[in-house]
């Protein structure tokens, strides 16, 4: 059986760094939930304006899309904190304890590397949009660096959370793949 995603916060780590990062990820989770709620409210407002008042709805679709994108990116570290990202741990569970620990470290480093890559190029993309003053091609004309900011922020926070997870793993405070049972 795979690890059950937990809705409970993990037990507090003795490392201050890990605890601070957990608090940041928790705050990011509140932001993400808030943005999803805002998207619900704006969509309902749009339907009301259009269907009841027969008015123009120019900015809502775009605002809602960017809110959901930002909620996803900013929510990444929080979901990582909750171990909510699905994985297949059939092989790890079949391995002996030491190999399992090595594999956990390896996947952790692989995750950090790919997120660092996304952070680097995501920041670059955000920077181009900022430098060139890109806007969306609608009447609303959003300055695109605002929604694109969620790329460096989301991947940056996820990188932080993954680093904290690796630290906890190496220190032996965190035991993924059922390492506690082995």
């Amino acid at each position: 059986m795979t690890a059950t995603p937990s809705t409970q916060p993990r037990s507090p780590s003795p490392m201050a760094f890990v605890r601070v990062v957990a608090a940041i990820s928790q705050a990011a989770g509140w932001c993400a939930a808030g943005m999803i709620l805002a998207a619900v409210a704006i969509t309902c407002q749009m339907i009301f304006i259009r269907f009841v008042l027969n008015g123009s709805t120019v900015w809502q679709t775009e605002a809602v899309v960017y809110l959901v994108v930002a909620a996803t990116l900013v929510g990444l570290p929080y979901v990582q904190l909750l171990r909510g990202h699905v994985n297949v741990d059939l092989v790890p569970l079949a391995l002996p304890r030491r190999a399992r620990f090595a594999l956990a470290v390896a996947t952790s480093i692989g995750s950090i590397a790919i997120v660092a890559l996304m952070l680097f190029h995501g920041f670059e993309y955000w920077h181009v949009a900022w430098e060139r003053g890109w806007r969306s091609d609608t009447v609303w004309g959003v300055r695109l660096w605002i929604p694109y900011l969620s790329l460096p922020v989301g991947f940056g926070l996820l990188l932080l959370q993954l680093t904290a997870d690796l630290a906890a793993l190496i220190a032996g405070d965190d035991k993924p793949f059922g390492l506690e049972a082995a």
Partner: protein
Amino acid sequence: MDPLLLGALVAAATILVLFSGVSVALGLLIVSAAFLMIFDGARSLELMPEIFFGKLDNFALLSIPMFIIMGAAISSTRAGADLYEALERWLTRVPGGLVMSNLGACALFAAMSGSSPATCAAIGKMGIPEMRKRGYPDGVAAGSIAAGGTLGILIPPSVTMIVYGIATETSIGRLFLAGVVPGLLLVALFMAWSLYSTWASGDAARLAPRSYSWAERFEILPRVLPFVAIIMGVLYAMYGGVATPSETAAVGALLCLLIAIVIYRMWDPRAIWAVLRDSTRESVMILFIIAAAGVFSYMLSALFITQSIAQWIGTLEVNRWVLMGAVNLFLLVAGFFLPPVAVILMAAPILLPIITTAGFDPIWFAVVLTINMEIGLISPPVGLNLYVINGIAPDISLRTILVGSLPYVGCMVLAIILLCLFPGLATWLPDAVMGPAQ
């Protein structure tokens, strides 16, 4: 390198990376980055965040968190219990009545929730302990809820149908309607099996339910009204010219939150946060996979793998039903390991041209695909519904759940066969409501 050979290499690498225990979304990104770097140069690597953002930049995706909120809000109240109890009072004389009320409650709840785990959790929290208390075997209790929960993605609204609609550019309104009749068919098959197995076990007498007076039966009906109100409200918004299907989801989410707070008195901010937290967790998990699968399919397309596979299949001279069988087998195996959205997003761009060239209807195929994905939800090693059952009843072993849900898997396979024999089961309702397809 030959694109087909490259495709085989990508498949092998993907399996290897995903089996290492890395999260599915990050694994897809790792494989994409590696292949883009080696076979396409650094300039494609620079594009990854842009593609990632672009895949999420889609209004229809909004409905995913919304339909999840609907389920989470209602499942946090005693509404699920009310629904289940109402059904039980009415189905009481039937052997195995309790399993049947649970299945019926799952089906009704599925009409409000776009996600399968939410459906499973909403009914299971009440249903599993109750069934065990009344002497039903653990396997039956857990298996029926695990399977009943999968109806969440077949009976509209459905997150996987939305994702399929986006990936293949088919009408989401039409896809939703296509799931209705097959959903009812599946409920009927599940119920028929439960009835038969209770009767065959010879325990029907022991499982005799307590009886309810007619007064008790009618008294509970008003408590089902909020459900009816939500379902009617959403249907009216969607098909009555108020809003597009993606926008309707927001109406549903708002309605469910309001009903939870006002009618079920969910006033504690911690309870509201729990709803938001669970919805955010599930939505972000799904949307992350959607975006990462988007980067993955960019890689497949940039390296000309998607195009080459479609061409290659086109040159094969195989019977279309053999092809359909092979496609289903592939989906079934993929579904063992991957959550439905990941399978749909990775497979749809490759499979859809094959399916339509062979003369199959993409709407009909969406239903077959969804039932196939339902099997994956209750099969190890990655079965989202199994996590939920495990959370509700940690003392029931995985083996027991699996054995208990096996007969229901049989029902799903039977439903796929029936759909192949009578495609009208899926296409009749959308054609009747929205006019014949193109």
